[in-house]
Every structure is written in structure tokens, then in C-alpha cells.
């Protein structure tokens, strides 16, 4: 063993006594890492994913080590979420918890260690998605915020603000129909998927609006031309990278 702690419990010597109740999990806002974390938020059809992928390509071309993490993509958890959605097993509470489990795995496995290593981490949806959706499903506002207390605070959180009608038009153009949980069909708001989507996403928009001052979200007008939105995003990101030149990876 190499060392002795001198602590004995019955006949056993404890080699490294644990200290229960001493927390080493830091809370939102307390993290200081060399890396940078940029996240995009907004309702479906706001164009946030398009913008993030353009930013990704630009950062790579500049020589930064960039890593992308998507909502609901943990290899450990996503099968459970898929099962819950497919068989419609999820209640507002378990919907909230399984998504936080997925997020925790991505935080512990990739987001946090990569930020420590100095990477630029890009997230398509972050904790604010959970705050908006779970509260719209009737979960307690405070409880959900506390649930995600272990999250790393982003360097910048972009919120792509779009009117509901614009988002619906974009979604209808792109594909047919709305998904069950995405439209909030589990809430029994309306039998018609589009009607339900309208009510549910409307509630989500309200929650996002309240979060702009609460979490200092950076608002991007998502009705502007794509190029213009991207230019705004890049100029904001640039200022955050200026003092972090060591992030550059040699090509």
C-alpha cells in the first residue's frame, strides 16, 4: 500500500478515510478554466444549429481546438431517453431528470475536462433549454435550476430570438409533422400536433424571455439574414478569444 493512515475501524485499517459531506463538485459560476464555452439556445426552427456549425468551421479554420456537444447525445444515457420517448413513459419529472442525466454525463466526460484542457467547446442547447422546457411542463422553476447546479457557466450563451410563426413556417417547410414531446403532446394541450406545438413552444418562448436578464443571455435577432447573424456571432466570440491566444492549435 505504501502508506498508512492510522485510522482503524474494527480490525480494519482504512487506508484513505473518506470525508463524507465535503463537496468537491463546484457550482454554476464558480468554474475557472482555460478553455472557452459557447452555447446556442432558442426554440426549434430558430436557426441556431446552422449558426453554430458556421461558427465551428470558422474557429477550426483559425486553428482552434474545437469540440462540439449536442443536447441529448450521451452514449451512456441516450438509449434510455429514446426508450422513454418511444414508449411514452416520460412524465414531466422523469423527462427533466433523464435529460439532466444526459447533460451530466456530457459535462463529466467531455465538457469539463475539455475546458480544463483549454479547448473551445460548442454546445447546441444547454441548461437553458431544460429550464424553458421543464418549467413549461409544470416543473418547479427553482428545483430545475438547482438540478443543473453542477453545470459550467458558458463564456457566452447566444439566444436566437424568433417569432413563433416564423419558426413554425420554417419547420413545416423542412419536414412533415411535429414530434410528440417536442410539440408537448404529453401535456394534453391539444389533440392537433400543430396546435399543441404552438401552445407549448409559446410557453417556452416566454421562459426564454425571462431568462435573458436572469442569465445574461446574448440575444441575436434570428429573423436577420444568416450572414449578418453569423458576423455578429463571430465578432462577439472574437473578443472572448483575444486574451486566449494559447488556445491556438498549430496546423
Amino acid at each position: 500500500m505504501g502508506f498508512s493512515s492510522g485510522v482503524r475501524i474494527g480490525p480494519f485499517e482504512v487506508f484513505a478515510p473518506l470525508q463524507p459531506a465535503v463537496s468537491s463538485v463546484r457550482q454554476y459560476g464558480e468554474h475557472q478554466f482555460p478553455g472557452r464555452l459557447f452555447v446556442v439556445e432558442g426554440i426549434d426552427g430558430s436557426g441556431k444549429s446552422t449558426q453554430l456549425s458556421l461558427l465551428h468551421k470558422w474557429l477550426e479554420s483559425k486553428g482552434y481546438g474545437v469540440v462540439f456537444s449536442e443536447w441529448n447525445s450521451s452514449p451512456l444515457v441516450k438509449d434510455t431517453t429514446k426508450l422513454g420517448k418511444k414508449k411514452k413513459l416520460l412524465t414531466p419529472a422523469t423527462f427533466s431528470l433523464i435529460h439532466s442525466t444526459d447533460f451530466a454525463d456530457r459535462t463529466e466526460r467531455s465538457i469539463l475536462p475539455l475546458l480544463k484542457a483549454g479547448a473551445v467547446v460548442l454546445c447546441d442547447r444547454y441548461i437553458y433549454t431544460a429550464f424553458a422546457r421543464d418549467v413549461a411542463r409544470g416543473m418547479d422553476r427553482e428545483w430545475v435550476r438547482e438540478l443543473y447546479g453542477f453545470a459550467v457557466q458558458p463564456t457566452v450563451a447566444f439566444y436566437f430570438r424568433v417569432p413563433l410563426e416564423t419558426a413554425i413556417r420554417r419547420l413545416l417547410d423542412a419536414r412533415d409533422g411535429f414530434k410528440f414531446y417536442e410539440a408537448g403532446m404529453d401535456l394534453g394541450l391539444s389533440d392537433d400536433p400543430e396546435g399543441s406545438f404552438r401552445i407549448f413552444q409559446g410557453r417556452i418562448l416566454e421562459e426564454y424571455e425571462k431568462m435573458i436578464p436572469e442569465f445574461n443571455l446574448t440575444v441575436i435577432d434570428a429573423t436577420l439574414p444568416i450572414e449578418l447573424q453569423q458576423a455578429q456571432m463571430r465578432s462577439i466570440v472574437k473578443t472572448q478569444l483575444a486574451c486566449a491566444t494559447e488556445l491556438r492549435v498549430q496546423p
Partner: protein
Amino acid sequence: MRETYGKLLPGLRLPDLAGKLIVIEGTDGVGRTTQINLLKPWLEEMGHAVVDTGMTRSLLAGEGIRRAKEGNSLGRVTQTLFYATDFVDRLENEIIPALRAGFIVLTDRYIYSLMARAMVRGMDPGWIRSLFQVALQPDAVFYLRLGIERLVPRVVFSRGFDYWESGMDLFPGHDMYDSFCSYQAALLAEFDRLSEEYKFETVDASAESKAVCGHLKSRILRLLEEDSRKTFLTKLSLGPAGVEARKAADKSHSQEHREVDDALVLVPARIPAHTVPGNGHAALQQKQ
């Protein structure tokens, strides 16, 4: 009157939960499962309907947790939340419907095991408590306690070492025996702390399992008697007319709540009011 630990799940009405929630807690290897297997038929013989549940038995997350534990890359926050998902799924789909139907729910571990495990892994105690605010306060928590010197041989000689029971995620590189002793000792210390905070009834688990069971039975009987006496006394003091009036009042009260609730909240689609507790999952699986 039933209460939660601080937060109410959407759509839940506490006065509806007439059954009894009895928790058997304790570290690995203290004989919790043995006791539940003895208590259940005994309660049923007396005419009580019983549902038993335990960790990772949820339809939603049980399989996912088992798979995640096969690879040894389950982080501590993820682990805590995965187990919390499993717990809430069973709470909403087994425990609550059973209590609503007047069953006795025997649960092998409850939130306290999850709390102890998370705290030993260095999670923030405030965070853990807030997570489990949605849990119902049980009617009784029996804490089967075994000192570390008795616990080690019992576990090790009966089923050998398990990676997670030995806390190997906390002590990579150490052998399982050393790790097991340290981990279980820390858990025990945490359980003892929780026992004070949550007022567990501690039961010495070093005795023969029959003796332990005898002790549990007498405590449970007292709990059930107390309850029936209370109901009886209420009826007595109110008189038959009073009982009717009370019933009517309760009814209009709950109806009021229902209207408010329906406007805001969503009753989980999986629990129809007529669900037979415990069979919900089976019926669901048959449908697939």
C-alpha cells in the same frame, strides 16, 4: 397527513395517498431483501395488499443503469442523476398509484441510500437534498445496521466483491478488499448521520434474520394499529352524520383542486386512475 420533502410533483394530490410507505434501508449485505421477502407474505396473510419495489427496477431507467455500470465510466453526477431518474419513475408509476389504492408499499432502499452514496462521492449535500425534495416522506424507515467488522465477512464470503459495492470508482488502483472496507465504512458513517437527521428506526441486523423480522413485525403492527385507531377515533368523535359531512367536504375540496390542476398541469399519461398498482408495467409491456 402525508408530506413531501419540500416540492410537489406536477399533478400529485397528497391527500389521495391513503396507503402506507415503509422503507427498509441499510448498507450492502445487511439482509434488506431477506426481510422484505419475509414481511410481504406476512402482511398479505393479514389481508393487506402489498407492493414491493427497489432500486433499478424502473421500466424507464433500470436497464440503462445496468448497462452504464458495465463500463466503468459512470461519473458521480451522472450516477446520482441516473438513480434519481429510476427513483422518480418508480415513485410516480409504482409507489404513488399503490398508495392511492391503499396498498402497503415495502421499498428496498429509498432516497437515503442514494444520498449516502452521493455524499460519500463528494457531492454537495445541499444539491442532493434539493434533488430529492420531490420524494414522499415515508411512514417508517427501518435502518438495518451492521458494524463494518460484521459486514465485511458477510458480503465477501457470500457473493464476493463487486466493483461498485467496493467503491472502486473512488479508489482506482487499490485492491477490492481495501477499497471495500474504506467505502463501506464511509457509507456507514453517512447512514448514521442520515439516521439522526431523518429519524430512522435503527434495527440491529447482526441477530438471526428471524429475530430481526420479529422486531420489524412488531413495529409495523404498531404502525398499522395506530392508523386504524386514529380512523376509528375520528369516526367516533364525528358521529355518522359528521363522517358524511366530512366526506362531502373532502370531495368538494379535491374537486376544486382538480380544476386548478388540470389547467396548469399534466397528469402523467402513464397512470390512468384505475391502474392496478404493480401491474401497470406488465400491462404496458404486453401491449408492445
